[in-house]
């Protein structure tokens, strides 16, 4: 199997695991890890898209998706750092790491 197909399958798996984690748990750190997995899956997909098609290898790598990945990584690092800070503050104030439905009325 050519490399870009392997990347794409791996990307699909990462996206699926990430989405599963976000939807399945109530624990915000795990959800954040799920978001990171989802993000990494998307970055891997972009890397796979950047690969030259197998029947025209002389085209080389497409730089545009790679530039997107670079920007995406910067955004992901900032978002994760900020999210962890916020979650830590939330834990310090409320003493828990879940955000359940309800109990918002008052």
């Amino acid at each position, binding site marked *: 199997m050519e490399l870009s197909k392997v990347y794409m399958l791996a990307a699909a798996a990462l996206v699926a695991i990430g989405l599963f984690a976000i939807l399945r748990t109530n624990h915000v750190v795990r959800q*954040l890890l799920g*978001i990171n997995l989802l*993000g990494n899956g998307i970055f891997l997909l972009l890397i796979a898209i950047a690969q030259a098609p197998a029947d025209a290898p002389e085209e080389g790598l497409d730089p545009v*998706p790679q530039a997107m990945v670079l*920007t995406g990584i910067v955004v992901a690092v900032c978002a994760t750092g900020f999210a962890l800070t*916020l979650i830590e503050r*939330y834990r310090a*104030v409320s003493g828990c790491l879940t955000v359940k439905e309800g109990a918002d*009325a008052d």
Partner: protein
Amino acid sequence: MPTDPATAALWLVLIPLVTAVITFLLPSAGRCLVTVALAIALLPLMQLIQYLWVVDGSVIHALGGWAAPLGIAVSVQGDKAFLLALIWLVCVGVGLYSLRYMGEGYKAFWPLWMCLWAGLNGLVIADDLFNLYVTLELIGLAAVALTALTGEAAALKAAVRYLILGLTGSLLYLLGVALTYAAYGAVDMPTVAKVMTATPTGNVAIALMTVGLCLKAAIFPAHVWLPPAHANAKAPVSALLSALVVKGAFLILVRLWCDVYRNAQTSGAQEWLGYLGAAALLWGASQAIIQQRLKMLIAYSTVAQLGYLFLLFPLIPTHANAWPGVLLMLAAHALAKTAFFLAAGNVIWAAGHDRLRDLDIVMPRLPVTAFAIALAGVSLIGLPPSGGFLGKWLLLGVAMESERWWAAILLVMGGLLASVYIFRVLMLVFSGKAPSDAVSFQAPPPIMEWAALGMALAAIALGLASELPLALIERGGRP
């Protein structure tokens, strides 16, 4: 200052960004710097509007001289200039209010707010799907940080929920952008629109982007994060979030469905967005009616008003009056909701809480604030001569023209439901209870009361002087 109208659009992103950095470094000067930035931003804004008025064309700028599809293009047409002006106006109202409201403990407010403003302006002028992702993240992170500003448990909890949903939404959008690039080899919107044909990859891409943006736009049933986030933030933050932030995702959705994927044979999905709007309208309004806290009531009213924007979503590309109608509704809601949230901030300042049943002894002592709520209510209900009425009138015409009687009935019913929750608040003013000295009462500073009233008056003025904005929206044609 800029001489070229195309760079004027970029100044509108640059000015708030630079101000954000400086206010972050010099937090004590936040107030002055933001005031100066708001004043300076008026120059490029006026230049853009004047250019569009005289030339009646579209302003396109390729960043760094690299033209699309490889480079990143920004463009401004009449409707975008209208939105830029609206964002500026809301920011001025919020700014005047915050001069007194945001005390020394809230120095982080100024840089975060400037980031939000830069992100919103960037979102409006961007013509590139990936660029839109970056602005979405900038807006999203700034909005979450602003929500958490008070540091109280309820606000932090709402902020964490908002963050998880917001990040998931923007990543789903990014996944859609990646697939769009895979399918069409471009992320520049006009380029994609040209080469668009319905392919499986392209369809999955638009579906993912739509789901992600619906999460961010808090359309029913993805609205659950909105009321706690908007209700537990500080008043100016609630105003910014309700008036502008949720509209950002909506604007991208409109551009996706009405420009980029216009030719795709997927009108069934657009219909469903309309049905979601109908559900949001009924659910949001009925929840607003039963809320016990003033700010929760206003937040659910936002859920309902977002429903109006989605209601005629499928008709925007085909009916000439739909887009101006939606834009007027959007602007009227932004101004009225800013006024309403700022007024709620005054009430909390005066009473120390926002429990509706205990406000009947406080509201009669806040005549200016009560007047602001009444005028904002006029626009939210859609009574003439407000901007809300005019937008609704245009949309009602479109609904009848296309024989969507259910949409026409909902537009009218939405106004009736809105009047129920607005009158729940206004009745408190005429409770007839004598203000007693036993209750603690702290009069809000006049500038805060007048800022709220100013925003409400702007929502009414939008209806009275609607010719100017309507003419501006038509300038340069639809992108």
